[in-house]
């Protein structure tokens, strides 16, 4: 039995780097400090069905040598007129860097999962900027935390504990004790409901409720962190909030604009905005302007509801307005563990963060035209390479149908919906478990991934696979592969 300390969890954008693993042979026996998903990722790491190198021949996937699969992938990409290279957010920055070289060589669109999650955030940031920060500041200084369209207790499990509400900061005490009291009172409330149901007493009907709920613990205490949640449903995070604003779906934009008006001391012509009384919004605006240091964390509930990047633009503008009255920051709750890294690497190389079109030899960027879903819906591409992602399981049906009309290459460590329907399958090593590398946390802090196990024989790192495909593409195009791969790449 060996214990590996300070392991980085390759699951969500929190990139928790304090995990401890107890390992026996090639099996993880116990995981300490991780959330349920991080723990499961390591505990069940060896139980997945791993991919084998395969090529579709006469409609059937046939196992071939790794070299043959790589050769076939290179042939497809070299022949394609408008290929798309998609994925990247669950692999290391080193692999993304080689992916960019490949995209430039074959003349492809390179795009990653931002396109379907926080792409709108990027568009908005480009229009109005971003009052950013690192999560360390969040832990030590912030006294007002807002989650808008995000439920960290179901998506970024340790965000509460490490960086926001429950964290013990230098200048901010944890509110965990108060939250435990709140949690116990919720349990008591449920018990009472159960009893009333048993006694056949007709319960008060609790329909879809719009408006605000305040914590039963009453007014905020001085020096306490305050937690505000805005969501369309009463999530677990909302149950712990000091102030929960339940909004109708697709009305976030109106609410944010109304808040901006109130923060700027302007009067509204209406009595309610999207079903929320103006008095409630005034109360919320008061809490916001009275914060010492506040933060707005937003999730895909805001980026992918009606208005998309306009919602984020409004949210960032709200933070900008608040900065005239208080100190405020804003940060997207990035999903996949290295989606920020993919953004960063593609930006420092091409100048644009995602949906970069290199088909004409120079980077062009126009989400809506060069973003993967739009390319697929218009049926523009004629080959698709997917790495460290499973688009067949998650993309809209029509996009997947168009994707499957053309050759599909999948690079993945485990069997997924995409590898099952792909034309070429290339097995890879688990990034963050079998391969190290660099990943970026949601606040743009680079963190080094730890290699815990040696990959099985025949399972190469993504970076190595891409280098081999690149060399093969260059060979097909009649170029000297060695001469064109820069030293250290």
């Amino acid at each position, binding site marked *: 039995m060996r214990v590996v300390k300070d392991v980085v969890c390759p699951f969500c954008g929190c990139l928790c780097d304090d995990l401890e693993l107890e390992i026996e042979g090639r099996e993880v026996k116990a995981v300490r400090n991780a959330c349920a998903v991080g723990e499961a990722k390591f505990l069940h790491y060896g139980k997945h069905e791993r991919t084998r190198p395969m090529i579709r021949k006469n409609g059937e996937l046939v196992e071939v040598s790794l070299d043959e699969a790589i050769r076939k992938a290179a042939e497809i990409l070299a022949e*394609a007129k*408008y290929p798309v290279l998609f994925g990247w957010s669950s692999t290391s920055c080193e692999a993304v860097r080689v992916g960019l070289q490949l995209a430039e060589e074959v*003349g492809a669109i390179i795009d990653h999962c931002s396109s379907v999650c926080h792409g709108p955030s990027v568009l908005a940031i*480009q*229009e109005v900027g971003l009052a950013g920060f690192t999560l360390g500041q969040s832990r030590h200084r912030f006294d007002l935390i807002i989650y808008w369209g995000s439920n960290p207790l179901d998506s970024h499990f340790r965000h509460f504990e490490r960086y926001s509400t429950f964290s013990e900061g230098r200048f901010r005490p944890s509110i965990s004790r108060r939250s435990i009291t709140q949690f116990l009172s919720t349990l008591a409330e449920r018990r009472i409901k159960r009893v009333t149901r048993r006694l056949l007493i007709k319960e008060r009907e609790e329909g879809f409720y719009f408006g605000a709920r305040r914590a039963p613990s009453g007014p905020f205490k001085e020096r306490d962190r305050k937690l505000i949640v805005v969501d369309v449903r009463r999530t677990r995070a909302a149950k712990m909030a000091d102030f929960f604003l339940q909004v109708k779906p697709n009305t976030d934009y*109106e609410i944010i*604009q109304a808040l901006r*008006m109130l923060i700027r001391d302007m009067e509204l012509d209406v009595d309610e905005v999207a079903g929320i009384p103006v008095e409630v919004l005034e109360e919320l605006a008061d809490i916001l302007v009275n914060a010492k240091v506040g933060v707005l964390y937003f999730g895909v509930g805001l980026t992918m509801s009606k208005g998309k990047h306009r919602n984020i633009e409004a949210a960032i503008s709200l933070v900008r307005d608040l900065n005239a009255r208080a100190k405020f920051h804003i940060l997207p709750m990035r999903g996949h563990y290295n989606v920020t890294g993919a953004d960063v690497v593609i930006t420092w190389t091409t100048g644009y963060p995602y949906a970069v079109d290199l088909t004409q030899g120079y980077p062009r960027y126009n989400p809506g035209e060069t973003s993967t879903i739009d390319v697929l819906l218009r049926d523009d591409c*004629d080959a698709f390479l997917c790495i460290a992602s499973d688009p067949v399981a998650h993309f809209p049906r029509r996009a997947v149908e168009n994707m499957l009309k053309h050759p599909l290459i999948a690079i993945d460590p485990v069997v997924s919906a995409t590898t099952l329907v792909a034309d070429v399958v290339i097995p890879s090593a688990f990034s963050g478990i079998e391969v190290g590398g660099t990943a970026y946390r949601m606040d743009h802090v680079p963190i080094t991934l730890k290699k815990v196990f040696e990959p099985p024989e025949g399972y190469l790192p993504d970076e190595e696979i891409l280098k081999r495909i690149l060399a093969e593409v260059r060979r097909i195009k009649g170029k000297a592969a060695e001469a064109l791969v820069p030293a250290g790449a």
Partner: protein
Amino acid sequence: MATITLTPKYSFTVPVYAPCISPDSFAGKTLKEIGELEVWEGNRRKKLKQLFDIKGKTADTPEEITIKLSGNLWKVRRIGEEMTAGKILIDGDAGLHLGVKMRGGTITVKGNADSWLGSQMRGGTIEVMGNAKDYVGGAYRGSGVGMRGGTIIVHGNAGYDVGEWMRGGFIKIMGNVGAYTGVHMQGGTILVQGDSEGRIGALMKGGKIVLMGKIDSILPSFTIQDLKKRTKVEGEAVEGPFYVFIGDLTEDGSGKLFISKKSNPHLSFYERLI
């Protein structure tokens, strides 16, 4: 007038970028020279003659040239880019970026047009008989300058973000529009004869939007100013009555929204504030 006809030689499967299809590029060239102009078919550099059959008569100045395009042009992008004079007639649908940055001349589309129709245009006229998608007369990513002059007329519906970052010119949508019409608008006029999906004039600082059809609600960052019997658009009277809103106040804007009273009886509660 010299007419040049372009017909695709085959059905395109990947995007074709052909900014050279404009009277300015064709002027003063022989048909052979026009055929040698460069286009991109996906990641392949091609010559115009490899993709299109080119027929007709050429002329020395763009004013004298009419380009007729027919066939499936949905994948052909950037037609008429930066044109200054002459005519383009498209018998069918047109792809993305039709007439972007154009300064003069006329483009007529018998079918539909894809997004970024007439983006950042400065002059001339674009008329689409069918529908148009998003960002009609809009700006490109990161740019704060949309349409600055000229006229766009869409006989059908238009999508989201019509007139985004618009600074001048006139857009007329005869059908319905999606949300965020005139977002970030700073000048110019938009006339919508159909309904709006909402959030009209968001973040606008100037300019004028006239909506004849229905809208669910006006953004809370606008304030009612007046009730007018009629208004004028491009010199012509449009009969109302209209609720007149000013905004977007969150951007210290003074743009004007003219919202039809007849089509929106649910907005009558604003009248008590006038």
